[in-house]
């Protein structure tokens, strides 16, 4: 969408996340630092081999909660330039990205802090759930209240 050029991005998608594209969409000349968190599917958990992860989302509410994280970041770090958060759902294979968070800012410190805040908060508030698929079964990952 042309209207999203150089605006914050909060999306969920069934398709592979276009990380470079996301970075390009939010990059402006004011940025001196781009900090990106990319969460990828690990090949094991607690020593047990993982085949894939199945993500389920409550799409409309997930996007609202991502926007809320964006609002909080702008309050805490007003110097941030742009925020991009894209979460994927569906079945993901090893090394595929489930979540990409990109923060741009004039200087790096705020970008690092805001990026960590975003992923820490997302894992507590954004309504998405994952199930680990093993060779011999599957298990919902337990979140905590």
């Amino acid at each position, binding site marked *: 969408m042309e209207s999203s050029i150089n605006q914050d991005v909060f999306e969920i998608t069934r398709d592979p996340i276009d990380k470079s594209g996301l970075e390009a969409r939010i990059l402006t000349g004011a940025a001196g630092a781009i900090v990106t968190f990319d969460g990828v599917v690990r090949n094991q958990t607690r020593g047990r081999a993982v085949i894939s992860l199945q993500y389920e989302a409550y799409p409309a509410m997930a996007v609202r909660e991502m926007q809320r994280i964006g609002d909080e970041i702008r309050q805490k770090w007003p110097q941030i330039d742009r925020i991009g958060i894209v979460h994927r759902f569906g079945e993901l294979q090893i090394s595929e990205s489930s979540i990409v968070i990109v923060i741009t800012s004039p200087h790096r410190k705020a970008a690092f802090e805001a990026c960590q805040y975003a992923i820490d908060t997302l894992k507590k508030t954004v309504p*998405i759930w*994952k199930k680990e698929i093993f060779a011999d079964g599957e298990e919902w990952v*337990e979140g905590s209240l």
Partner: protein
Amino acid sequence: MTINILFFGACREAADGVAEISLDLASMSRGGETPGNPDVLLVWQSLAGRYPALARFNGNVLFAVNEEYARGDKLLVAGDTLAIFPPVSGG
């Protein structure tokens, strides 16, 4: 007076795999009383009766009304969407 219920994640599986149902709030009356608007908790208890596997989420379940997190004492009105799900585990 009808509301919409959504189940996600392990709660959906516990609700016999039902992702979405409509619920007539008139069915929520307690005993012989004429009910006012039920709160989230009353609906939850009713659903846990209907889908026994849900009961294990008691105290470990989250609610959202119209896409906003809500507590058990939130009153529901016709047309509301109540989402019921376990603690989130995205990222």
